[in-house]
């Protein structure tokens, strides 16, 4: 029994549902400018593996040691479309330094996704999540939702809704994270 002795308690059991978060360390001003929610301590990101548009398997572990921007999106999401060009620019500028944008498309048909990706000229990998399992794993209930992950594979911050990822603060954040040392061999 839950030991609540001073107050009545209404406990809800929820199918999908945390804790308070605060901005973190010297990155805080950048997180604030971008209106990102920082994790009080860098949080281990849930592991997942999914198929890509090209038919490969992709997992977060494949990108260990990189700074990752993990973006959940869908073609019907107007706000997702608005931030796609910025994500693509980030990918093109920072990929050579150990950076990756990973898109997770939520519950859409492969052909629909492929047309959209071609139309917008996206070059970053897109993981398909046809049954929404990755979506649930990350607690995403609205799009776009974006998680920023450091070289140590731990999440630094997340955003619900679109952001100016290629603006001055976005680029400065990625630069700062890329300047952090990569974990040694065997360190997740």
């Amino acid at each position, binding site marked *: 029994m839950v030991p609540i002795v001073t107050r*009545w308690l209404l406990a*809800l059991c929820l199918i999908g549902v945390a*804790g308070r978060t605060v901005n973190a360390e010297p990155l805080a001003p950048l997180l604030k400018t971008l209106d990102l929610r920082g994790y009080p301590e860098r949080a281990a990101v849930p592991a997942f593996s999914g198929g890509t548009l090209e038919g490969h398997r992709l997992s977060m572990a494949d990108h260990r040691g990189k700074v990752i921007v993990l973006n959940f999106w869908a073609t019907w999401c107007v706000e997702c479309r608005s931030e796609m060009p910025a994500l693509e620019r980030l990918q093109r500028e920072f990929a050579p330094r150990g950076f990756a944008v990973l898109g997770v498309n939520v519950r859409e048909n492969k052909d629909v996704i492929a047309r959209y990706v071609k139309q917008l000229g996206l070059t970053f990998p897109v993981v398909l999540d046809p049954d929404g399992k990755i979506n649930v794993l990350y607690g995403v209930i609205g799009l776009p939702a974006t998680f920023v992950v450091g070289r140590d594979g731990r999440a630094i911050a997340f955003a619900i809704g679109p952001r100016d990822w290629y603006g001055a603060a976005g680029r400065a954040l990625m630069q700062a994270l890329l300047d952090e040392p990569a974990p040694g061999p065997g360190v997740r």
Partner: protein
Amino acid sequence: MARKADFKRFEGLGIQNLGVSANLTFSQQTFAESLKLPYPLLSDFPERKVIRSYGVLNEKTMTANRAFFLVDPQGIVRKKWIIENGTTTVVYGDRLLPEILEVIGKR
């Protein structure tokens, strides 16, 4: 999220809202932030002890069925509302409140 809108009303009655699910704290954080929930969510992952002990574990999906439990200050469950599986209907405080008031004697 019905409970968010009703939060002040429950708070005024001395009722603490808590959410429990079988999700990771990581996903709960995203969920809570998305909805700007004003009350805590508790992760019962991976054991699902609380969910099971309250009898609302869906063994097939290993998730919690939707349910509400009213627990008194002595830790006794005084009322429960089990929402039928697959129901997506939002449960508003308007439905729960009269029954809660009756149980806590503030009618």
